[in-house]
Protein backbone atom coordinates (compact mmCIF):
# COMPACT_ATOMS: atom_id res chain seq x y z
CA UNK A 1 0.00 0.00 0.00
CA UNK A 2 1.38 3.40 -0.99
CA UNK A 3 0.96 6.49 1.16
CA UNK A 4 -0.84 9.56 -0.24
CA UNK A 5 0.47 13.08 0.10
CA UNK A 6 -1.54 15.18 -2.37
CA UNK A 7 -2.72 18.51 -1.02
CA UNK A 8 -6.37 17.93 -1.88
CA UNK A 9 -6.71 14.84 0.28
CA UNK A 10 -4.31 15.60 3.09
CA UNK A 11 -4.99 19.22 4.05
CA UNK A 12 -6.50 18.25 7.40
CA UNK A 13 -3.48 16.07 8.13
CA UNK A 14 -1.20 19.00 7.31
CA UNK A 15 -3.23 21.42 9.46
CA UNK A 16 -3.10 19.00 12.38
CA UNK A 17 0.64 18.70 12.11
CA UNK A 18 1.54 22.32 11.39
CA UNK A 19 -0.73 23.79 14.07
CA UNK A 20 -0.34 21.20 16.74
CA UNK A 21 3.14 19.72 16.48
CA UNK A 22 6.73 20.56 15.65
CA UNK A 23 9.45 22.18 17.69
CA UNK A 24 8.20 24.40 20.50
CA UNK A 25 10.36 27.27 21.65
CA UNK A 26 10.70 28.70 25.09
CA UNK A 27 7.93 31.18 25.78
CA UNK A 28 9.99 34.27 26.57
CA UNK A 29 11.46 34.45 23.05
CA UNK A 30 8.18 34.05 21.28
CA UNK A 31 5.47 36.40 20.11
CA UNK A 32 2.84 33.71 20.04
CA UNK A 33 2.03 30.33 18.62
CA UNK A 34 -1.17 30.36 16.57
CA UNK A 35 -2.88 32.58 19.15
CA UNK A 36 -6.27 31.22 19.97
CA UNK A 37 -7.85 34.59 20.92
CA UNK A 38 -6.93 35.95 17.48
CA UNK A 39 -7.64 33.20 15.02
CA UNK A 40 -11.41 33.11 15.18
CA UNK A 41 -11.79 30.76 12.27
CA UNK A 42 -14.54 28.34 11.50
CA UNK A 43 -12.24 25.87 9.86
CA UNK A 44 -12.92 22.74 11.81
CA UNK A 45 -9.45 21.30 11.57
CA UNK A 46 -7.81 24.57 12.57
CA UNK A 47 -9.96 24.74 15.64
CA UNK A 48 -9.39 21.08 16.41
CA UNK A 49 -5.66 21.70 16.33
CA UNK A 50 -5.94 24.76 18.50
CA UNK A 51 -8.13 22.88 20.97
CA UNK A 52 -5.48 20.22 21.29
CA UNK A 53 -2.87 22.87 21.98
CA UNK A 54 -5.09 24.38 24.62
CA UNK A 55 -5.49 20.98 26.23
CA UNK A 56 -1.72 20.79 26.47
CA UNK A 57 -1.64 24.23 28.07
CA UNK A 58 0.63 25.77 25.42
CA UNK A 59 -1.22 29.04 25.38
CA UNK A 60 -1.59 29.71 29.06
CA UNK A 61 1.56 31.79 29.43
CA UNK A 62 1.22 33.60 26.13
CA UNK A 63 -2.46 34.29 26.10
CA UNK A 64 -2.19 37.56 27.99
CA UNK A 65 0.64 38.82 25.80
CA UNK A 66 -1.27 37.94 22.63
CA UNK A 67 -4.30 39.86 23.86
CA UNK A 68 -2.15 42.89 24.69
CA UNK A 69 -0.59 42.91 21.23
CA UNK A 70 -3.96 42.56 19.57
CA UNK A 71 -5.30 45.35 21.81
CA UNK A 72 -2.51 47.66 20.65
CA UNK A 73 -3.06 46.76 17.01
CA UNK A 74 -6.74 47.47 17.11
CA UNK A 75 -6.51 50.56 19.33
Amino acid at each position, binding site marked *: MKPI*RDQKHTLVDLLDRVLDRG*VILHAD*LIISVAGIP*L*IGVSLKAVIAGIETMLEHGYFNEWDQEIREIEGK*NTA
Partner: protein
Amino acid sequence: MKQAICLYCIVWSPNKPVKFKAVGISGKEVYPIYYKDLALIIHECKPIPYSSKDPRKVSEWVKKHGQVIDEVWDIWDSVLPFQFNTIIKETPKQSAFDNAISWLEEKHGAIIQKMRELSGQAEFGVQIYWNRQHTSDHLIKNEPTLLNLQKEMATKGEGGQFLLREKLEVELRGLLQKEGLKWTDQFLSKIKTVVSQYRVEKPKETGMILNLSCLTDKEKSRLGEILEEIENMEAFRVRFTGPWPPYSFSSLA
Protein backbone atom coordinates in the same frame (compact mmCIF):
# COMPACT_ATOMS: atom_id res chain seq x y z
CA MET B 1 16.11 45.02 10.27
CA LYS B 2 12.67 43.80 11.29
CA GLN B 3 11.82 43.33 14.94
CA ALA B 4 10.87 39.69 14.58
CA ILE B 5 11.53 36.55 12.57
CA CYS B 6 9.11 33.82 11.67
CA LEU B 7 10.54 30.29 11.82
CA TYR B 8 9.85 27.40 9.46
CA CYS B 9 12.36 24.74 10.44
CA ILE B 10 15.86 23.87 11.57
CA VAL B 11 18.29 22.25 9.13
CA TRP B 12 21.34 20.21 10.03
CA SER B 13 23.98 20.36 7.35
CA PRO B 14 27.32 19.17 8.73
CA ASN B 15 29.13 18.87 5.38
CA LYS B 16 28.08 21.88 3.36
CA PRO B 17 26.69 25.36 3.99
CA VAL B 18 22.94 25.71 3.70
CA LYS B 19 22.02 27.80 0.67
CA PHE B 20 18.32 28.16 0.29
CA LYS B 21 15.87 30.72 -1.00
CA ALA B 22 12.11 30.45 -1.25
CA VAL B 23 8.94 32.49 -1.22
CA GLY B 24 7.19 32.09 2.10
CA ILE B 25 3.98 33.16 3.83
CA SER B 26 2.49 36.33 2.28
CA GLY B 27 5.22 36.37 -0.39
CA LYS B 28 8.01 36.94 2.13
CA GLU B 29 11.58 36.07 1.23
CA VAL B 30 12.67 32.95 3.07
CA TYR B 31 16.36 32.36 3.81
CA PRO B 32 18.65 30.61 6.32
CA ILE B 33 20.52 32.04 9.31
CA TYR B 34 23.36 29.98 10.73
CA TYR B 35 24.93 28.72 13.90
CA LYS B 36 27.75 26.19 13.39
CA ASP B 37 26.33 23.23 11.42
CA LEU B 38 22.72 24.30 11.98
CA ALA B 39 20.53 26.76 10.14
CA LEU B 40 17.16 28.26 10.90
CA ILE B 41 14.91 28.80 7.88
CA ILE B 42 13.12 32.09 8.44
CA HIS B 43 11.47 35.19 7.08
CA GLU B 44 11.52 38.63 8.63
CA CYS B 45 8.22 39.93 9.93
CA LYS B 46 6.46 42.30 12.29
CA PRO B 47 6.27 41.24 15.94
CA ILE B 48 2.63 40.29 15.53
CA PRO B 49 1.25 36.77 15.24
CA TYR B 50 -0.49 35.74 12.05
CA SER B 51 -4.20 35.83 12.69
CA SER B 52 -7.34 36.00 10.62
CA LYS B 53 -11.00 35.16 10.86
CA ASP B 54 -10.88 33.87 7.32
CA PRO B 55 -10.24 30.11 7.38
CA ARG B 56 -9.09 30.20 3.74
CA LYS B 57 -6.40 32.70 4.63
CA VAL B 58 -5.28 30.67 7.64
CA SER B 59 -5.33 27.57 5.53
CA GLU B 60 -3.16 29.28 2.87
CA TRP B 61 -0.63 30.36 5.50
CA VAL B 62 -0.50 26.88 6.95
CA LYS B 63 -0.11 25.33 3.50
CA LYS B 64 2.71 27.73 2.69
CA HIS B 65 4.43 26.96 5.99
CA GLY B 66 4.26 23.25 5.14
CA GLN B 67 5.33 23.84 1.55
CA VAL B 68 8.50 25.72 2.54
CA ILE B 69 9.41 22.93 4.99
CA ASP B 70 8.82 20.36 2.22
CA GLU B 71 11.10 22.32 -0.12
CA VAL B 72 13.83 22.35 2.52
CA TRP B 73 13.27 18.65 3.23
CA ASP B 74 13.70 17.87 -0.47
CA ILE B 75 17.26 19.18 -0.21
CA TRP B 76 18.30 18.22 3.32
CA ASP B 77 17.45 14.97 4.97
CA SER B 78 17.66 16.33 8.51
CA VAL B 79 14.93 18.86 9.22
CA LEU B 80 13.05 19.78 12.38
CA PRO B 81 9.81 21.67 11.63
CA PHE B 82 8.48 24.44 13.84
CA GLN B 83 4.83 24.92 14.63
CA PHE B 84 3.14 27.51 12.44
CA ASN B 85 3.30 31.04 13.90
CA THR B 86 6.51 30.54 15.84
CA ILE B 87 7.83 34.10 15.85
CA ILE B 88 10.95 35.17 17.72
CA LYS B 89 10.86 38.74 18.94
CA GLU B 90 13.56 41.18 19.89
CA THR B 91 14.18 41.72 23.60
CA PRO B 92 15.58 44.82 25.34
CA LYS B 93 19.16 43.52 25.06
CA GLN B 94 19.10 41.47 21.84
CA SER B 95 17.70 41.58 18.34
CA ALA B 96 15.38 38.82 17.16
CA PHE B 97 18.29 37.40 15.13
CA ASP B 98 20.57 37.30 18.15
CA ASN B 99 17.81 35.70 20.22
CA ALA B 100 17.44 33.02 17.57
CA ILE B 101 21.17 32.34 17.47
CA SER B 102 21.35 32.25 21.29
CA TRP B 103 18.56 29.70 21.27
CA LEU B 104 20.39 27.56 18.67
CA GLU B 105 23.56 27.80 20.73
CA GLU B 106 21.76 26.76 23.90
CA LYS B 107 19.95 23.86 22.21
CA HIS B 108 22.73 22.78 19.84
CA GLY B 109 23.42 19.45 21.57
CA ALA B 110 19.74 18.51 21.88
CA ILE B 111 19.05 19.50 18.26
CA ILE B 112 21.95 17.44 16.88
CA GLN B 113 20.87 14.46 18.98
CA LYS B 114 17.33 14.76 17.63
CA MET B 115 18.56 15.18 14.04
CA ARG B 116 20.63 11.98 14.35
CA GLU B 117 17.65 10.15 15.82
CA LEU B 118 15.43 11.21 12.90
CA SER B 119 17.97 10.87 10.11
CA GLY B 120 16.68 9.03 7.01
CA GLN B 121 13.23 8.72 8.53
CA ALA B 122 9.86 10.25 7.78
CA GLU B 123 6.52 10.54 9.49
CA PHE B 124 3.48 8.68 8.17
CA GLY B 125 -0.14 9.03 9.23
CA VAL B 126 -2.14 5.82 9.69
CA GLN B 127 -5.87 5.76 10.32
CA ILE B 128 -7.74 2.48 10.54
CA TYR B 129 -11.53 2.41 10.20
CA TRP B 130 -13.71 -0.46 11.34
CA ASN B 131 -17.02 -1.45 9.78
CA ARG B 132 -18.76 -2.57 13.00
CA GLN B 133 -21.84 -3.68 11.12
CA HIS B 134 -19.81 -6.20 9.15
CA THR B 135 -18.37 -7.72 12.34
CA SER B 136 -21.77 -7.54 14.04
CA ASP B 137 -23.39 -9.53 11.19
CA HIS B 138 -20.60 -12.09 11.39
CA LEU B 139 -21.00 -12.50 15.18
CA ILE B 140 -24.79 -12.91 14.96
CA LYS B 141 -24.35 -15.73 12.46
CA ASN B 142 -21.42 -17.48 14.16
CA GLU B 143 -21.14 -16.75 17.89
CA PRO B 144 -22.62 -19.69 19.92
CA THR B 145 -24.01 -17.47 22.74
CA LEU B 146 -25.86 -15.31 20.25
CA LEU B 147 -27.07 -18.28 18.20
CA ASN B 148 -28.51 -19.89 21.35
CA LEU B 149 -30.30 -16.70 22.29
CA GLN B 150 -31.80 -16.46 18.79
CA LYS B 151 -32.99 -20.08 19.00
CA GLU B 152 -34.54 -19.43 22.39
CA MET B 153 -36.27 -16.33 21.07
CA ALA B 154 -37.98 -18.38 18.40
CA THR B 155 -39.70 -20.46 21.12
CA LYS B 156 -41.01 -17.48 23.14
CA GLY B 157 -43.98 -15.19 22.98
CA GLU B 158 -43.81 -11.45 22.36
CA GLY B 159 -42.83 -10.46 25.92
CA GLY B 160 -40.17 -13.15 26.19
CA GLN B 161 -38.78 -12.22 22.80
CA PHE B 162 -38.47 -8.59 23.85
CA LEU B 163 -36.43 -9.49 26.95
CA LEU B 164 -34.22 -11.89 25.01
CA ARG B 165 -33.66 -9.30 22.28
CA GLU B 166 -32.46 -6.88 24.95
CA LYS B 167 -30.15 -9.56 26.32
CA LEU B 168 -28.87 -10.32 22.82
CA GLU B 169 -28.07 -6.66 22.21
CA VAL B 170 -26.15 -6.39 25.48
CA GLU B 171 -24.19 -9.54 24.64
CA LEU B 172 -23.47 -8.25 21.14
CA ARG B 173 -22.25 -4.88 22.41
CA GLY B 174 -19.88 -6.64 24.82
CA LEU B 175 -18.57 -8.92 22.09
CA LEU B 176 -18.08 -6.01 19.69
CA GLN B 177 -16.14 -4.11 22.32
CA LYS B 178 -13.88 -7.11 22.86
CA GLU B 179 -13.44 -7.52 19.09
CA GLY B 180 -12.53 -3.84 18.71
CA LEU B 181 -9.88 -4.06 21.44
CA LYS B 182 -8.56 -7.33 20.03
CA TRP B 183 -8.12 -5.87 16.54
CA THR B 184 -6.64 -2.61 17.80
CA ASP B 185 -4.05 -4.52 19.85
CA GLN B 186 -3.30 -6.84 16.97
CA PHE B 187 -2.82 -4.04 14.42
CA LEU B 188 -0.69 -1.99 16.79
CA SER B 189 1.51 -5.01 17.59
CA LYS B 190 2.15 -5.57 13.88
CA ILE B 191 2.79 -1.90 13.11
CA LYS B 192 5.21 -1.59 16.04
CA THR B 193 7.50 -4.16 14.43
CA VAL B 194 8.14 -1.99 11.35
CA VAL B 195 8.35 1.54 12.82
CA SER B 196 11.02 3.11 15.00
CA GLN B 197 8.58 5.35 16.93
CA TYR B 198 4.84 5.89 16.98
CA ARG B 199 2.30 8.17 18.65
CA VAL B 200 -1.25 7.12 19.33
CA GLU B 201 -3.53 10.05 18.46
CA LYS B 202 -7.19 10.50 19.37
CA PRO B 203 -9.56 8.90 16.84
CA LYS B 204 -11.16 11.83 15.01
CA GLU B 205 -14.12 10.29 13.23
CA THR B 206 -16.81 7.73 13.80
CA GLY B 207 -15.53 4.30 12.89
CA MET B 208 -11.87 5.19 13.32
CA ILE B 209 -10.40 2.70 15.77
CA LEU B 210 -6.75 3.55 15.43
CA ASN B 211 -5.09 6.87 14.64
CA LEU B 212 -1.31 6.80 14.59
CA SER B 213 1.65 8.96 13.66
CA CYS B 214 4.51 6.64 12.76
CA LEU B 215 8.19 7.33 12.28
CA THR B 216 9.92 4.95 9.92
CA ASP B 217 12.42 4.75 7.06
CA LYS B 218 11.53 7.33 4.41
CA GLU B 219 12.18 5.02 1.46
CA LYS B 220 12.29 1.39 2.53
CA SER B 221 9.72 0.91 5.25
CA ARG B 222 7.56 -2.22 5.41
CA LEU B 223 4.71 -0.22 6.92
CA GLY B 224 2.84 -0.19 3.58
CA GLU B 225 2.90 -4.01 3.42
CA ILE B 226 1.44 -4.36 6.92
CA LEU B 227 -1.25 -1.80 6.13
CA GLU B 228 -2.13 -3.54 2.90
CA GLU B 229 -2.80 -6.76 4.84
CA ILE B 230 -5.20 -4.83 7.08
CA GLU B 231 -6.81 -3.05 4.11
CA ASN B 232 -7.49 -6.45 2.55
CA MET B 233 -9.59 -7.53 5.55
CA GLU B 234 -13.27 -7.03 4.80
CA ALA B 235 -14.23 -5.16 7.95
CA PHE B 236 -11.37 -2.63 7.85
CA ARG B 237 -10.25 0.31 5.76
CA VAL B 238 -6.89 2.04 6.02
CA ARG B 239 -5.88 5.62 5.31
CA PHE B 240 -2.14 6.02 4.85
CA THR B 241 -0.58 9.49 4.41
CA GLY B 242 2.97 10.71 4.03
CA PRO B 243 5.85 10.94 3.89
CA TRP B 244 5.70 13.99 6.17
CA PRO B 245 8.62 15.82 7.73
CA PRO B 246 8.80 14.58 11.34
CA TYR B 247 6.32 17.09 12.81
CA SER B 248 5.13 14.70 15.53
CA PHE B 249 8.59 13.59 16.61
CA SER B 250 10.45 16.89 16.78
CA SER B 251 10.03 17.93 20.40
CA LEU B 252 13.38 18.68 22.00
CA ALA B 253 14.59 17.55 25.40
